[in-house]
């Protein structure tokens, strides 16, 4: 084999360059087409279970989005849609159905409605498996337009926004949203629900979504007790000057006659774990405590000096949940029921009729 001459070598190099450039462009086009097909497939599969919600609040008629989570017609939406309104109507499959509110919970920012029909349902995924830049799809009803797919990516996991701490970590999603899309499901690329869109961000170019686990926690409370039961143990946490075993969450105060005091937790203990959630910063406590249910035994691991101790604390009802509604005669709803602000405005068994 005789070696190629100089001119032939340069022609071959040029041809290779053209071929590789062309294949790169082709690959890019292919991947864009593949994403488009995937989004379309998710949209076609999931949009059947996404509904438009009409309601009436004290100001006007409201419109939002929701989605079915089981075949008996239970659906999730945002608190701003299904929390403080009534006279709900669901547009689904080209028909309108009256709906009733099962539960509304302002701490999670979600609400549960129900229609008495057999419905399709979206599978529930895990938001914990998401990472920054993971692609996601939302399906919602913007303004008075039909169901619309939105494609974006996870931009972050935020514990606070504009100086306000959330009750649990929220998903910040770079995904354009419009008015009317509150309550829309946030789907991973398998078509599983990983969050619920609850608010927009600057110029509607991005949004916040509540992780689906938060809504599922409220739902499991409802299944067990008929109401949301946020738990607490009675401690205040602050930032320790030095990290201890990787954590800077220090018990600043343990209130008297609370589960924490009874279990033996003391001020100065460094929190390492609450329930299943590891704690590294004081902010992590909010996320961990959101998933505590009143009445449950919660293992809490702390560092006291050089000792690692685990306490089993029976959580009580969160004080914020004790703002019970007043009766017409000025008395409170009986305390024995531990009624809380998460009790729905309407829990009547009969579905309401549309006006």
């Amino acid at each position, binding site marked *: 084999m005789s070696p190629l001459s100089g001119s032939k070598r340069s022609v071959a190099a040029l041809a290779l360059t053209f071929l590789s450039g062309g294949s790169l462009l082709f690959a890019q086009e292919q991947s864009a087409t593949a994403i488009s097909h995937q989004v379309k497939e998710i949209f076609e599969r999931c949009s059947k279970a996404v509904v438009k919600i009409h309601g*009436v*609040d*004290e100001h006007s*008629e*409201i*419109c*939002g989005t929701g989605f079915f989570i089981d075949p008996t017609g239970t659906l999730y939406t*945002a*608190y*701003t849609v299904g929390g403080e*309104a009534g*006279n709900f109507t669901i547009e689904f499959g080209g028909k309108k159905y009256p709906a009733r509110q099962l539960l509304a919970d302002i701490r999670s*920012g979600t609400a549960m409605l129900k229609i008495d029909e057999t419905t399709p349902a979206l599978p529930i995924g895990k938001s914990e498996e998401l990472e920054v830049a993971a692609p996601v799809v939302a399906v919602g009803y*913007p303004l*008075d337009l039909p169901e619309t797919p939105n494609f974006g990516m996870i931009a972050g996991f935020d514990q606070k926004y504009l100086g306000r*701490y*959330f*009750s*649990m970590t*929220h998903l910040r999603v770079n995904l354009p949203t*419009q*008015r009317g*899309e509150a309550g829309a499901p946030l789907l991973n690329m398998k078509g599983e629900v990983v969050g619920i869109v*609850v*608010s*927009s961000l600057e110029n*509607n170019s991005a949004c916040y979504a*509540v992780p689906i686990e938060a809504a599922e926690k409220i*739902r*499991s409370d*409802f*299944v*067990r*007790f*008929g*109401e949301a039961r946020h738990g*607490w*143990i009675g401690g*205040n*946490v602050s930032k320790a000057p030095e990290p201890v075993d990787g954590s800077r969450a220090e018990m600043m105060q343990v209130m008297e006659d609370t589960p924490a005091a009874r279990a033996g937790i003391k001020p100065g203990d460094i929190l390492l774990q609450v329930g299943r959630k590891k704690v590294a910063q004081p902010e992590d*406590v*909010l996320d*961990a405590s959101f998933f*505590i249910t009143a009445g*449950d035994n919660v293992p809490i691991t702390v560092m006291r000096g050089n000792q690692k101790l685990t306490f089993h604390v029976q959580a009580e009802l969160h004080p914020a949940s004790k703002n019970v*509604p*007043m*009766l*017409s005669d000025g008395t409170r*709803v*009986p305390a024995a*029921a*531990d*009624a809380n602000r998460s*009790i*729905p*405005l309407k*829990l*009547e068994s009969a579905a309401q009729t549309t*006006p």
Partner: protein
Amino acid sequence: MDEFDDREIARLLRLKRYEQPPPGYFENFLHEFHRRQRDELLRQPIWRMCLERAHAFMLGLDVRSLTSYPAAVAAVLVCAAVISLKIYQQPETARVALQSPPAISTPVSAGEEWNLASPPVAPPILRMQPVRSFHESAQTHRAAPPRYVLDSVPVSYEPTFRF
């Protein structure tokens, strides 16, 4: 003209030929004219000016044509009042809460077996009335367009690191 002969006039004209108005005289002439006109008008007392204006206004109105249709004017006013009352009527202040003591189910004990598939416990039957009837509200605001919901800030909020 009799007092001046032609030579005298010619001499005066020669003298005036070199007289010029101050700089900007012609530019400010109109402005100055209007200013002086205003000054002249304002020398009248205010009551007289008001009287004159009122008089001019009344003359401009065709009062007779208005007074010849009092019934029509009254009907229009009554219609406007009725419509405005209909649109902006205050909603009734409704009862805040319950008609009868609530019947709340006993919570299931935390230790019992349960899962998401198990039937929910009987929810509390709280027949709470909202601050006002949604039906009434819908009627009151029938003309208002629906509000498409998407807030700019999530409602979830914790004031402290208390848990």
